[in-house]
């Protein structure tokens, strides 16, 4: 079957019931999209299909024929960063980073629909799991990407030991 991933149409010889996640990872060698649970519970595998965030671990590849798939590798043009990725760096979001491809894809899809999301919109729109617990920074970075003012600086302080922390 033919698959349109990140604007490139490619032939893949796979079973139509194979989840899109494993076609991306093992057949096409695009491994930015991650396996976390296989039951659409964690969102590590989030990609866009025609602009909608979907969980690729439960999306049979046959169902996306003729549709546009966007993965983390294609979120921004080569060598550039999407505003969400930029905000992620500026707000030091990732820890282990494993869930972050999915988080970023979910955030980008949310912002495409709701350019100025509230906290509640983000809670509802980004239900991905992060075991490291980066949620507060994910939220902050989404606000930053939306153009909201966020405070991401470590306040400069002098510690009791005389260390200047910043």
């Amino acid at each position, binding site marked *: 079957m033919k698959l349109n991933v990140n604007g490139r149409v490619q032939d893949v010889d796979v079973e139509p019931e194979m989840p899109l*996640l494993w076609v991306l990872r093992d057949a096409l060698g695009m491994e930015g999209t991650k396996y976390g649970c296989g039951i659409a519970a964690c969102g590590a595998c989030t990609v866009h299909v025609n602009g909608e965030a979907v969980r690729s671990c439960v999306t049979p590849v046959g169902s996306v024929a003729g549709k546009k798939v966007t993965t983390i590798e294609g979120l921004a043009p080569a060598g550039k960063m999407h505003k969400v990725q930029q905000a992620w760096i500026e707000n*030091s979001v990732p820890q282990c980073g494993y869930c972050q491809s999915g988080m970023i894809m979910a955030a980008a899809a949310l912002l495409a629909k709701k350019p100025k999301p509230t906290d509640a919109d983000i809670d509802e729109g980004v*239900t991905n799991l992060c075991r490291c617990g980066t*949620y507060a920074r994910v939220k902050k970075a989404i606000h930053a990407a939306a153009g909201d003012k966020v405070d991401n600086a470590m306040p400069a302080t002098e510690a009791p030991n005389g260390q200047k*922390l910043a």
Partner: protein
Amino acid sequence: MNATLSRRQFLKSSAVVGGGLALEFSTAGTALAQFGMKDSPLEVTHWIVIKPDDTVVIRIARSEIGQGSATGLAQLVVEELGCDWNKVTTEFASPNEHIRRKRIWGSMSTGGSAGIRTSQDYLRKSGAQAREMLVSAAATDWNVPASECTVANGVITHGALKKHTTFGKIAAKAAKLDPPKEPKLKDAKDWTVIGKSARRIEVADKVTGKPIYGVDVRLPNMLIASIVQCPVFLGKVKSVDSAEAEKMRGVKGIVKQDDFVAVVADNWWRANQAAKALKIEWDGGKYANASDDTIRAMFKEGLEAKDLPAARKIGDTDAALASAAKVVEAEYESPYLNHAPMEPMTSTAWFKDDGTLEVWVSTQNGEASIAATAEAAGPAYPLEKCEVHKTQVGGGFGRRGAPQDYVKQSVLIAKQFQGKPVKLIWSREEDMQHGFYRPASMVRMKAGLDADGKIVAMKSTIACPSILALLRPEGIDKGIDFTAVRTFSDATYTIPNQQVDYAMRNGHVPVGFWRAPGLQNSFYRECFIDECAVAAGKDPLEYRLAMLKDGDRNKAVLQAAAKAANWGSPLPQGVYRGIAQSDGFGSYTAMVAEVSVDPQGALKVHRIVFAIDSGYVVNPDMCRAQAEGNAIFNLGALYEAHHVKDGRIVESNFHDFPLPRMVEMPKVETVLVPTGGFWGGHGEPGALNVVPAVLNAVYAATGKRVRSLPLKDGKIA
């Protein structure tokens, strides 16, 4: 259940050997060992390689599991080296070279919040040595005394001669010099890199989906495996019918071992589909009927047992309890918990045609991984013929350190596919049901209060499986596993009579180092102290402060947390505070939680104020990130649990082992109060007080004392 027997059986019958054991492997006598051998003419010290373009490569012996240690460790080196931070990169030190060079990089273990605090001395020293060598080489070139040269941002300058050179230009000459034995280190007050929130070095890779994790390894002609392990711990494969699986598309072979079966295919999904089609009959063995009830009965028996070893004995606790004005007594318990890192267990092994064996792995201990590799491969593959490539790790939390089960499995699987790399990825279901769980435990506490409500005696009996018995038996001291008794055995409360008894009750569920091992004891102790404060009619903050000596850092952090949280000030209607303090992993911590509980019993945590004294702080923002992560990780522990039925773990994925989501994230405020003179950790201390601070606030809100986790039906009842 016979504890000793079950442990021994476990070690014998499964593919588990802890890092602690592995590290004892002797490398003496290996032909390749040459102490001090350099692998590159640009290796200035074994930690630092400087390239002609001024790039500084800092070797990282520990693992980067998300805690930010690669960045923090590099900061320690750069502080003394004096190079340009923007030209710094890191690489993981090779475990093979580490063995050949007689463990030149020290510990590769990444646990116990110890990465920075236990390597800061030799890393700063190495940075200073390299700086002095670089300066010395430049000074020799210029024929001036080294003392007349200055260093800034990787440039060496002689002001009077108006000469300058860069680290990159002089590195090859500097590398030929002997490192000075006692280089001069900076005073803490002069630090400009340590104490700054340098951005995570690998951050760009992590937001652009670069294939940097163990699961992402791709090699020529690579095969991919999925595994099915005996659902009953310590059980075995009785028979396998793989006829149907073998016929499925992409399947290359089936690997049968004592306690697992793996399917190897050209694609993970195909391997996993075929694994589901296997018809396996298991022999559950003697634990096939173990359940929550048998495990609780084992703990109950432990609490009643006579002649238990004492982890602490001060004064005459029984006598003081007998004469106390009031006695407070309670039993607490908590369940097994999985680490559940987002990246499942994974390891890729390749038996190469040249007789060597290479492994790529998400590990918390590269040295334990290479030892596990050699052990699983057999005598034809001594350590020096093995290599381990460490990848970025998609979460560890203790799962990928001492237990190297998945590495051994990948080696055993690949051994049957000589010449081809085989990547093993566990399904989430395997990951959930084959963990090394945070021990379940049960504790009975009894406190004697005098007429003023002050605690004069406290007796604690702890029934808890031993992590060390399974993973590092040499660490057991007179029947005591310190990870099972900590927080009781080392409490700094000035209680004149204290007794802490330990009933090691192991069962068959494997236990391991779960982020902040022993942290359930902070829940028990700090909630029980709260009960005593209530019984005494005292404010829980004042009650604790009165039991802590002046000069005890626990007292100072308690005051710092209370001050930052405005302890005692009015709160919005329906919001209540709780407080707790514990030390551990080299740091002193206290926490105030603000919560509300709705009429249906649903808990909402609004704010957490966390104070920590870690002596020094290397990267403040990453310390804050660790505090945030610890907060939500442990709020999850209020709701998560593993149940045991028919000898196996019941929960299988995130639908029945629910991790917290964004909506549950409270506001976390971190108060860094480092007092200097010591180096404490940050990866785990923030975990200690979350549960007790929240549950003490729940008591303040509802009058209901939660003594058993998880919360029944997720509610305060």
